[in-house]
């Protein structure tokens, strides 16, 4: 099969779909031209992510990676969310087809973008290295680096 059962489960029954109107941080990465946009909403209390929601335009693996990424950071301290790697996302989904790896990169970056937004709103500084490019497909200039 093209996708693992885990991917199909998170695609067909995505966790944490939705919006948070009074979110403490919102991150959006990707673009319509590339065929995937991920938007992540965070609610943070005492540096703990108490709630997280996502909205995604994209393929099944874009939706599944968004879903699992939100699960992986929910209830976790912000510092841990920042350590979320695309590799961890792929592993949690029991793998992704090679052409779909970029979705996991996107998920990682969506989380980071949301955290960055939170930091910004809080007036905090953040390590530059975490936030490079939005990671996309070959249509973006930086795309290639992210699609492994």
């Amino acid at each position, binding site marked *: 099969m093209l996708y693992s059962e885990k991917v199909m489960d998170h695609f067909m029954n995505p966790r944490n779909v939705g919006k948070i109107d009074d979110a403490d941080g919102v991150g959006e990465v990707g673009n319509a031209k590339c065929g995937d946009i991920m938007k992540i909403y965070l609610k943070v209390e005492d540096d703990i992510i108490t709630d997280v929601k996502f909205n*995604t335009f994209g393929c099944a693996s874009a939706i599944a990676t968004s879903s699992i990424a939100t699960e992986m950071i929910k209830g976790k301290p912000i510092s841990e969310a920042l350590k979320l790697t695309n590799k961890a996302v792929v592993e949690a989904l029991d793998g992704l087809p090679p*052409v779909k790896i970029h979705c996991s990169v996107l998920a990682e970056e969506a989380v980071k973008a949301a955290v960055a937004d939170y930091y910004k709103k809080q007036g905090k500084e953040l390590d530059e290295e975490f936030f490079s490019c939005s990671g996309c497909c070959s249509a973006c200039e930086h795309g290639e680096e992210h699609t492994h």
Partner: protein
Amino acid sequence: MLIYADNAATTAVSKKAVEAMLPYFTQQYGNASSIHTAGQMANKAMQEARADISNILGCEPKELIFTSGGSESDNQAIVSAALLGAKKGKKHIISSKIEHHAVLHVLDKLKKEGYDITLLDVSPEGIVSAADVEAAIREDTALVTIMFANNEIGTLQPIAEIGEICKKHGVIFHTDAVQAVGHVPINVKEMNIDMLSFSAHKFHGPKGIGGLYVRKGIRLSPLIEGGAQERGLRAGTENVAAIVGMAAALKEQVENMDKNAEKLKKMRDRLMDSVLAAVPRSRVNGDRQKRLPGNVSFCFEGIEGESLLLMLDSMGICGSSGSACTSGSLDPSHVLLAIGLPHEIAHGSLRLTFSEYNTEEEIDYIINAVPKVVSRLRDMSPMWERIVKEDK
């Protein structure tokens, strides 16, 4: 419930075709090039199939060779014409932006070898203009290759007109008729077609077999060298069972062509109308009239095709997004871009293609399912959110 609505990708083999093939596996399995009885029996069956198919296409049996399918036929036709052209110093080829990759990739390769390739634009309805073809023809044009019917959006091209123009200018005309043979009337002589490629599995024949018609007088170059099969033009032990199956399928298909087309057009038009009515910001790709009887192609804004497909699949509907052959690619269909759709809309395409095996009940089910799935995906799409906002 499993609804197969991906007949442009491939079809079920018809019962008649399977029955026609069976004896050639275990009984009449001789090598058609062998001179003994077993071989000659196989040979006879093959010659009958050749006669039947050439009869349907309107050519001589000698003008038809069997290949492993549409891709091989396209490759051999184009490379042969290119080589013929090069001998006379003609290295210009005209084609269109909506051809199948089996054509486009060969043209890419020829480009690297120094050929000059003109890829014509198409109208927003997905149709090549015959006038554009004529305008593009030059002194050094070796070949015009324009598909008969597009595999993604189903549009029928003005093949007879283009054939006449090519004849007038003395340019070889090849058409990739993989989606058309068995589905719409074709006569190579009347339409002035010099070369025509087809593939059995698109008309309820088996996979792995196809053909190439080449007008007498045009010299093919073998793509596969070896034995003297197909008069030295295509080596390899003849695939007799598949050839017989292909002929049986095509005969059946052509006998029922009008009846099937009528049925399919009704289903097609009802599906298009109903979905367009039920789903805002949806569109049909390709000319509504000049299209294959069984082809429906939509774009839905704000969602992406693969997730749409997989959700429909979970409801028992097998469709496709773009063409099956481009799966594994992240780019949206070159055909949808060629008809002028922006990337973000081209990503949200859905192709549903039917055969006479489909039923009105299945259409009902699809008409019910598609709007639901589109809504569900739009509900979680930040792009849809934006579209809605901008609308207000």
